[in-house]
């Protein structure tokens, strides 16, 4: 019963945040909406016994990533309203049509018994120890690769932000 209430409340918040992100012309409001969605999803993680994942979601996504987004929005000065008029032909019709088709198809698949049936297995233990146990045994190699990925990404980000083409040409910006 508690889970039903939580699902309804935070599901509505998540959908509302997502819609405001997509529909609001000002990206700053969009970013805030997205943050609300992410926090609600963190709640769902907790409900689904993903305690560690939930913490990471709050810290990394809702915290770091969204802060970064806001920071960039402020930095490049696009905290203005965007003209929402569509210029590409058929783009809006196609997008909406495909979205509806997607939902209908998911609904068709959703009729499958195993998904709608109640959970049969025992609840997984989403504690830090359990996750670490898996990451450092079965997933050790992918884990190491992600470290490499993160290093490359941070170096690349510094390189991209540091050198502008004009400065490389010798002229002062």
């Amino acid at each position, binding site marked *: 019963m508690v889970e039903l209430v939580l699902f309804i409340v935070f599901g509505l918040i998540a959908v509302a945040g997502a819609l405001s992100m997509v529909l609001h012309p000002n990206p700053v409001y969009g970013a805030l909406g997205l943050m609300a969605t992410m926090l609600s999803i963190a709640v769902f993680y907790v409900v689904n016994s993903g305690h560690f994942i939930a913490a990471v979601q709050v810290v990394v996504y809702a915290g770091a990533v969204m802060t970064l987004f806001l920071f960039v929005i402020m930095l490049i000065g696009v905290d203005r309203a965007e003209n929402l008029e569509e210029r*590409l032909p058929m*783009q809006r019709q196609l997008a909406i049509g495909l979205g509806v088709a*997607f939902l209908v*198809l998911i609904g068709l*698949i959703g009729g499958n018994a195993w998904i709608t049936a109640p959970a049969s297995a025992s609840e997984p233990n989403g504690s830090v120890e359990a996750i670490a146990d898996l990451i450092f045994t079965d997933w050790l190699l992918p884990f190491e690769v992600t470290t490499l990925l993160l290093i490359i990404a941070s170096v690349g980000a510094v390189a991209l932000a540091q050198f502008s083409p004009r400065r490389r040409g010798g002229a002062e910006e």
Partner: protein
Amino acid sequence: MVDYIWIVIALPLAGAVFLHFFGSRLREPIAGVIATSTVGLSFFYALIAAADFFSGTGEAETVHLFDWIPTLGANAELLWDPLSAVMTLTVTGVGALIHLYSIGYMHGDPRFGRFFTGLNFFTASMLILVLADNFGALFVGWELVGLSSYLLISFWFQKPSAAAAGKKAFIVNRIGDVGFLIGLMLILANFNTLTYGTVLADPARFVTAGTATAITLLLLLGAAGKSAQIPLYFWLPDAMEGPTPVSALIHAATMVTAGVYMVARTASLFELSGFAAATVATVGAFTALFAATIALMQRDIKRVLAFSTISQLGYMFLAVGTGAYVAGIFHLFTHAFFKALLFLGSGSVIHAMGDEQDMAKMGGLAKVMPVTHLTMVIGWLAIIGIPPLAGFWSKDEILALAFGAGGWFTFLWVLGIITALLTAVYMTRWMYLTFWGEARWDDGVDPHESPAVMTLPLVGLAVGSAAFGLLNTPFHGPFKPAFEHFLEPSFEAIEMAHLPSGSTPWFLALISIAAAAGGALFAYRRYQGAEAFDTAPVAAKRTGVWRWVTNGYYVDDIIGNLLVLPGKLVAAWTAFVLDTEIIDGSVRAIGGGVRRISGWLRPVQTGFVRNYAVVTFAGVVGLLVWFVSQGAG
């Protein structure tokens, strides 16, 4: 000695390899000295190795070096018998003198070392040819001399005419080689081996006379190409574009005799097919006469000698076709001396006149070039056949044997006598225009006698031209027919032509001496005191038949228009239509087609990220549709 006969080939070959890499770094005379000494050492080695043949105790020996293609009977094996010994001695002996002469002649040439590389390479190739013990190795030498001939004719490749002459020689030789190669394949098919020992010992055991005719006629085509006989003679006059020592060594003394040597070597095959032998004799006699007529009207000092060479080679073919193998090889031997002498003498003149080759601008050189003149007189008397010089003995023997063969050969004898007459006319004309009469030099030309390094070989060759005829006189007495005796082991299985009996040979000799003397006298009187100078041998206007003769019967033009022009047209069509239009066109069509199809697809790439995203999302939806259709729902 004989076991190491390969040294004869190895010495010039080593010289060629060494000079190829280091020749250009040596100071001028050194490269020439090295080249000359390798050939000279080869000559002395061959002389010692042939000692047993001189004493009459020697036997033919085969020296196996290494396996090459054993299944075809073509191994690196050398055959040392009197015939190959004569050839080896001629090539190395005359060759060494010409090498020596070249040191003086090529003085100051920027590619001095490279020239001697070519000469040494040629000598080695020619020795492979004459020492081979099977048709495979013979063919290797055969092609190598063709290659070195090409390299040396176009030695001054910066002259377009020299480059073209080299190309012409190479291509015409190639035509003959095709026939030669097919002949070798026929030999292989019928005899199952290429070794001389099996093929030539008793060919009648393997092939019929008809097959032998086919084989020998194909071999004759190769020989005609190499020895400049009708129909493949026309490359030789152009080959005079090469340096004069090359003309002397390759295109007078040695390489062009390869065809004669090959026919003599395969004598037993030719004997089996009487028709082929008669064809050889006929080709030879007609070539002799034909070339002699053209030589009458040439103005270039070397072209006269070139046509003269073709004519003399015709005599050799007449001899080997008649069955007079010894006489043919003997004429080859004496001709190597006097023709090399004449060529080197003309080289000496050209050198003295500052590269002038037109005889209309010479004359009166006897006073300023006494040594050259004296040796040329010997060469002149030798080639027109005045006894007791070398040319008389060898040529007269050929003619006498042809007369003795009777029948059709009597007609060929008549042609030979006419040729002897013409030879006397054109050689006397050559002498007169060059050495005698008034000086007609261009202004600023100051002729001088050539240096000793050039006159010394002239003297050596003159001695040979004068004396070596006595090696094979028909008279028994103070001089025995040493040459015939020497060559006997090589031809013991062959039925040789016989001299007519009784006093006929004397009578025949008188006829040919009369022809030579008459021709010489006629030409001398024709030019003596001629007022308005005219290079034509008779006081005819340069019209009608004389124009034909002057232009070599327009053979070059006919071949140029009939064979070369269509070839060039086909080549041009291939290059400018087939290649550019059809081949390149199809490539361009493929490229253009791809480009056009791409043109249709180009609008798909709008450049807008969101268009691409729509397509991606449509792909996702499409995947879902597929899942549902597969019954996932």
